[in-house]
């Protein structure tokens, strides 16, 4: 336990709060979000694994600032919270930006441009 463990957990809480209390895109209730996150976390293993491998690391961590638990390979568990929070934030901001663009476009012209987005979000 250390500053990385703490801030990684806080980052996830902050990102979830941004979605649930502020932007409310509803993305967490969609299949596409969870499927995409599963794929992203799957690909995090080879990429992050390469960056953090203790035999020849690109990124070096101060073990005192984290739990020291590394798995799979030598990936610090904190990295998964980091990645989950960061990619979730990107998706929330992306969907939010899309909604705003649509609203602005919809204010002028009537046709159903880009209806695919919102309809997908309604799928449980």
């Amino acid at each position: 336990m250390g500053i990385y463990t703490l801030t990684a957990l806080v980052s996830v809480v902050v990102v979830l709060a941004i979605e649930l209390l502020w932007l409310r895109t509803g993305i967490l209730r969609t299949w596409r979000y969870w499927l995409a996150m599963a794929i992203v976390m799957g690909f995090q293993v080879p990429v992050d694994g390469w960056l953090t491998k203790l035999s020849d690391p690109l990124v070096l961590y101060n073990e005192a600032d984290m739990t020291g638990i590394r798995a799979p390979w030598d990936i610090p568990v904190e990295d998964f919270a980091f990645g989950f929070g960061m990619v979730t934030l990107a998706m929330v901001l992306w969907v939010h930006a899309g909604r705003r663009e649509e609203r602005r476009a919809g204010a002028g012209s009537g046709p159903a441009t880009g209806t695919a987005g919102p309809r997908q979000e309604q799928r449980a």
Partner: protein
Amino acid sequence: MERGEYLVVMGLCLLITLPLELLLGARVWRRPRRLLVAMAPLVVAYSIWDIAMIAAGSWSYSDEKLTGILLPFEMPLEELVFFVVVPICGLLTLEAVGNVLTALGRLRAGEPVGRVLRDLPHGGGPRPAPAGSTGAEVA
């Protein structure tokens, strides 16, 4: 290669996700304005976190594997690239998965495979051109 290794890894991430844009119609790279609006706050927030952690000595970077190019506040160029590339890979995945799910829904609704596959690179949903077809009501 050695000193550019981190950048090469990031380049591979972009390369491997490119088919999501080109074949599965993710339309992330093709919406640069929206991408910029979405990414800017994230890049700023995570850069601040990174800079603070580097200053605190929580993590550091291999001198041999990075270009050595430092941005303000001692942040390696590679870290900025990371905060841009990895989230974009996530967005490409999100859009591509959404399109595939939409396409699967259309197939289940009995639409011809050929038409559904033809629409996939354009976003997965039925294009407005063939108006009034059943595909519009996929739920």
